[in-house]
């Protein structure tokens, strides 16, 4: 039965669009800037610079599977950075203890967000947006709006800048965190419950899932992962400046949303990473093409790429026939999952189309 083997699915344009996009960038910029772009050092640069943001993307991904937004991740990351620069100057504790403490503290921040979302029943978008500002205030208080820096041990700096056979350590950390998250999301009961909560919270509760605990836990995980991104940043760059947090938020979000249109077509780890690095290589190529001073390239490209990528996924299969594109796409997606020629849908149209058809009618009527 072909439907059992997910790997047998043909790579469609849409759910592998990030890989195609990546290939296009490699060819395009390889042609335009071959001597600069297609080099090991460029690849190392992109992968080492991207690792921190990619981890931050994973922090956003974890609660998103439960349909919960965590917009505080950027500020959790920069709070970690300021604390790692600030606390060693104030406390006579071994540095690893401080790191551990800061990561746990970030988990506690996630727990507070969770409390606001679960117990106070505040929409997660609002709760974490508010949380984000509070954390920003905490940083400004600690830093007095100045750069905060500390002289880290050489081993810590090496942990952020070294490489293993040319692979930056940071990317190894990224892979470890990604594999861990993938395992939890795709292989364990916890992950299954997270997707169930994300799909239908009422049904999840009635099916015996402690939805509050799942959402709460996902926000704690998000805080911890965002904090790990902060630790990695500190090891790589070092000093805290007050403009770190928000600048990292958008690329992380973009990668997750773009990634959610990839592979299994729901928020997923590898889709996120592929989407992230596809975009990162594109930006690197553009930067090489237009020169180092073109700092506006990155946001323009990130924004445009996100819109285009998700739009491609959303309108795929809107082939003529006068039907609603979205409905047709959903049907096609299901068709692909079903083994051909099976009588599951009886003599009728694919039953999934019924609901879609009705929704299409709503849309048609409402416009």
């Amino acid at each position, binding site marked *: 039965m072909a439907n059992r083997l997910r790997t047998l699915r043909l790579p469609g344009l849409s759910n592998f669009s990030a890989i195609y996009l990546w290939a296009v960038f490699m060819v395009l910029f390889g042609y335009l800037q071959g001597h600069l772009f297609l080099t090991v050092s460029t690849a190392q640069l992109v992968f080492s610079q991207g690792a921190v943001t990619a981890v931050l993307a994973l922090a956003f991904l974890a609660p998103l599977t439960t349909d919960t937004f965590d917009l505080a991740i950027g500020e959790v990351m920069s709070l970690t950075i300021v604390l790692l620069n600030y606390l060693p100057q104030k406390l006579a504790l071994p540095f690893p203890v401080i790191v551990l403490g800061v990561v746990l503290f970030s988990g506690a921040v996630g727990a507070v967000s969770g409390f606001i979302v679960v117990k106070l029943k505040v929409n997660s978008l609002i709760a974490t947006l508010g949380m984000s500002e509070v954390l920003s205030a905490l940083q400004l208080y600690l830093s007095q709006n100045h750069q905060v820096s500390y002289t880290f041990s050489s081993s810590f700096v090496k942990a952020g800048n070294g490489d293993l056979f040319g692979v930056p350590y940071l990317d190894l950390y990224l892979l470890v965190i990604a594999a861990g998250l993938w395992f939890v999301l795709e292989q364990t009961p916890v992950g299954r419950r997270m997707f169930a909560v994300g799909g239908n919270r*009422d049904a999840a509760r009635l*099916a015996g*899932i402690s939805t509050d605990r799942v959402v709460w836990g996902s926000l704690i995980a998000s805080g911890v992962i965002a904090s790990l991104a902060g630790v990695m940043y500190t090891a790589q760059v070092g000093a805290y400046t007050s403009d770190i947090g928000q600048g990292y938020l958008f690329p992380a979000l973009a990668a997750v949303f773009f990634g959610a249109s990839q592979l299994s077509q729901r928020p997923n780890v590898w889709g996120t990473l592929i989407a992230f690095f596809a975009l990162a290589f594109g930006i690197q190529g553009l930067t090489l093409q237009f020169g180092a001073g073109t700092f506006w390239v990155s946001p323009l490209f990130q924004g445009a790429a996100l819109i285009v990528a998700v739009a491609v996924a959303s309108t795929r299969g809107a082939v003529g026939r006068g039907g609603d594109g979205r409905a047709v796409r959903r049907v096609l997606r299901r068709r692909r*999952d079903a083994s051909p020629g099976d009588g*599951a849908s009886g*003599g009728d*149209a694919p039953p999934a189309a019924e609901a879609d058809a009705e929704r299409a009618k709503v849309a*048609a009527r409402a416009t």
Partner: protein
Amino acid sequence: MTLNLRAVSKTFGGQRALDGVDVDLAYGEVRALVGQNGSGKSTLIKLLAGYHRPDPGCVAEIDGRPFDLGNATAARAAGLRFVHQDLALILSMSVLDNMMLGRDYPRRRGGRIAWRAARREVSRQLEALHVDVDPLVAVGALSMAERTLVAIGRALADTAGKERLFIVLDEPTAALPKDEVGRLLAAIGDLRRQGHGVLLVSHHLDEVLDVADTVTVLRDGRIEASVPRREVDHDRLTELIVGRPVVQPSLAERAAAVARGSGRPALSVEGLSGGRLATLDLDVHPGEIVGVAGITGSGRESLAPLITGGLPRNGVVLVDGQPVAPGRPRAALAAGIAAIPGERARYGLFQNLNVRHNLTISRLGRHRRWSRIEVRPERAEVEEWIERLGIVTPGPEAPITSLSGGNQQKVLVGRALRMEPTALVLDDPTQGIDIGARAQIHDVIERCAADGMAVLLISTDSSELARLADRVVILADGRAGATLLRGPDLTDTSIDAAQLQSVASPIAS
């Protein structure tokens, strides 16, 4: 004859969904379109609505002129209107705003909406259907029948310059409580009197027989019969739909189980209250099927969520004599109460997950090893359930949304049964599903009871209760009213009558 379809076929990927179908509909006629899921009903409607294109070679005419079947714009221009099962209403918006959806509001100078004129217009349209509601009230505050009528009113308001329209009603009573069905059927009568042609799609044969002038039966994509109403009765119609005579299975086996099942109740509720329920005492013994009926507002719709923890409650729920913590479905499941919730799309299904995920979600520990779920044994177990419950699906990995409503419901049955519950609570388990799946689910319920499970069957479907229940408790005003015991007198009519009497008696006394 003014809407005429000849030799309409539709093929999906090599499968004939419709095979040379002829349908006629006249103005002032109510034609019922019946058939099991998969018989081609919805394909036919989607062709009419212009959602699919027919295979070449068909003839379609409206008022004697050729009509481009499969073209949504042509369908609208020709006066075809559709009211789908979900009604496409926005509950938080007023009746007025819903009626004006998709149309232009009357305007005053400067583009402001002329609210008074709009209100007059809407009131006039509602009056034509004898709907007496304030146009400024939110649709969510209306009864289900009123909502349906608002949706019909909106469809009719889009006249496109025609006096008489063809209106297709797709399962208009599926979501209606029993006591509101009559009101909708009356409105269908109004439509006929006003000269509209009505195509009524319904699973409810009683309604069909009540209101239709002509009946068209589809089976396997072909017209099985197209006859005046008076030429068929309920049994004949069922035979035409199913394609064979319907045999009522014997209840003897279960009667024996019930006899054994006296003694301590497996599920018992004492002084249960919450939601619309004032207070209720009820025992269900092992092997027993206890039915609960009641009109909307009687507390019937609150009962299942109260027992299973979906709603917070007062009072005691005991499983095998052990109390169950309130308000937590997880605790109820752990105690041995499994439930099949009403409104499966809203309270049951995970549309983002596949059949396997949907079926096993309540207990994932069974296939856990080293903290991960082992997919192979999980899939094998799901395949067993697919086999056992006769779930029609390409396989465990198929998206749940690719299944028909009846098969989705069977997945939920599997989810509940694999918890090996002491008590099974069912809330309208066969609502809106086809006859075949309904019969299969009934069989499963009987088998569960025969195996000694205590079954609480809460239903709006009296014939279902009459077929399955050992006794039926009628709820009225949040309390237990009459109890009907199994016997020759336990019929759908007696259950219907008891529910209606339960409303009538306080007024009479």
